[in-house]
């Protein structure tokens, strides 16, 4: 029987693992979520524009809703007031997802070592690839995306959690903003009655 199939299909058949096939497809179809807050965002736009043309690497479909994205590119400094928003957006992205921290400010706070600026987004959300520079050139971001594609192809899905989620009734966990208040209570800070509202 095997020889019969071989005869009919010839070389038109590959054997691989589901993991490798899924990783290959994912790596070449990244949908970035541009979280651009500062001048790095200009370089991010330039990377996607015609001169540097990110679509050559299969990752040009920028979407401005996190629910359609699987790669968050944090470009620019993130302030204290933005962290709850950043975390909520990260939690809204479906599995599998990756994060690129673009530029000195997103990686370490850069020159802004002040009370309001977070000293590196990796303190609060997971980061896969760091891009140094102030701001990085588009080539550096393209290199970071190629590195990330390499990483995706090599690692794939460790424990298939995203497939597991399909049989769970509740899907991905929502970010609990009350957790922020609980942490502040634990640290002994006084609280007002109103809930923390990052917008107002």
């Amino acid at each position: 029987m095997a020889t019969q199939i071989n005869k009919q299909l010839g070389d038109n058949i590959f054997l691989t693992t589901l993991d490798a096939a899924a990783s290959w497809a994912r790596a070449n179809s990244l949908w970035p979520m541009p979280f651009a807050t500062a001048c790095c965002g200009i370089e991010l736009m330039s990377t996607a524009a015609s001169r540097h043309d990110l679509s050559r690497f299969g990752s040009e479909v920028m979407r401005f809703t996190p629910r359609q994205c699987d790669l968050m590119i944090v470009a620019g400094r993130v302030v204290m007031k933005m962290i709850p928003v950043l975390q909520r957006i990260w939690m809204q992205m479906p599995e599998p997802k990756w994060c690129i921290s673009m530029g000195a400010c997103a990686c370490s706070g850069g020159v802004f070592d002040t009370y309001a600026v977070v000293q590196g987004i990796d303190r609060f959300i997971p980061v896969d690839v760091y891009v140094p520079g102030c701001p990085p050139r588009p080539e550096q971001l393209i290199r970071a995306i190629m590195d990330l594609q390499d990483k995706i192809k090599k690692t794939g899905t460790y424990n298939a959690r995203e497939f597991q989620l399909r049989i769970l009734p509740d899907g991905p966990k929502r970010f609990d903003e009350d957790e922020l208040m609980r942490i502040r209570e634990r640290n002994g800070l006084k609280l007002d009655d109103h809930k923390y509202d990052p917008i107002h």
Partner: protein
Amino acid sequence: MTESAESDWKQVLEKALPSANLRFSEFRNQQRVDVPASGIVAALTALRDAGMDQLCDLTAVDLLEYPGATDRFEVVYLLLNTTSGQRLTVRTHLNEPDLKIPSAVPIWFGADWLEREVYDMYGIVFEGHPNFKRLLLPDAFESFPMRKDYPVKGRGERHNFPIITRAES
């Protein structure tokens, strides 16, 4: 900016606050007047009625460790007469624990966000403001970061957030 226009607002202020200790000064042709905090509304209302129709800026200065300063905070009103082009700086001084001053929103509506920003950064309370809360920082923020005794790197507020790990998200 004629001599007569200058004496105009001096007379206006002295008429509005007859017994107050007004201090007039000049720095590089910029006219300044120091008004006690209790008479600030009377002074600003009189100046508005006398033609100072625009509040260019409302801000504050923390004079902690400032050479020769006797008061802690200084609230500064920068006024402009849009007809004559005349400008005037009105200053008033405040000290802890009584950091309260009447709001200027009934006089110039543009003072709304300026007063909220001054409260946000210095903790000076403007009484009678229609919507008094922080402007820039989160409501749960506890300090006033533009005060000179507040460290530049903060008191850990910037890192007081839950950490989302790869396993959780």
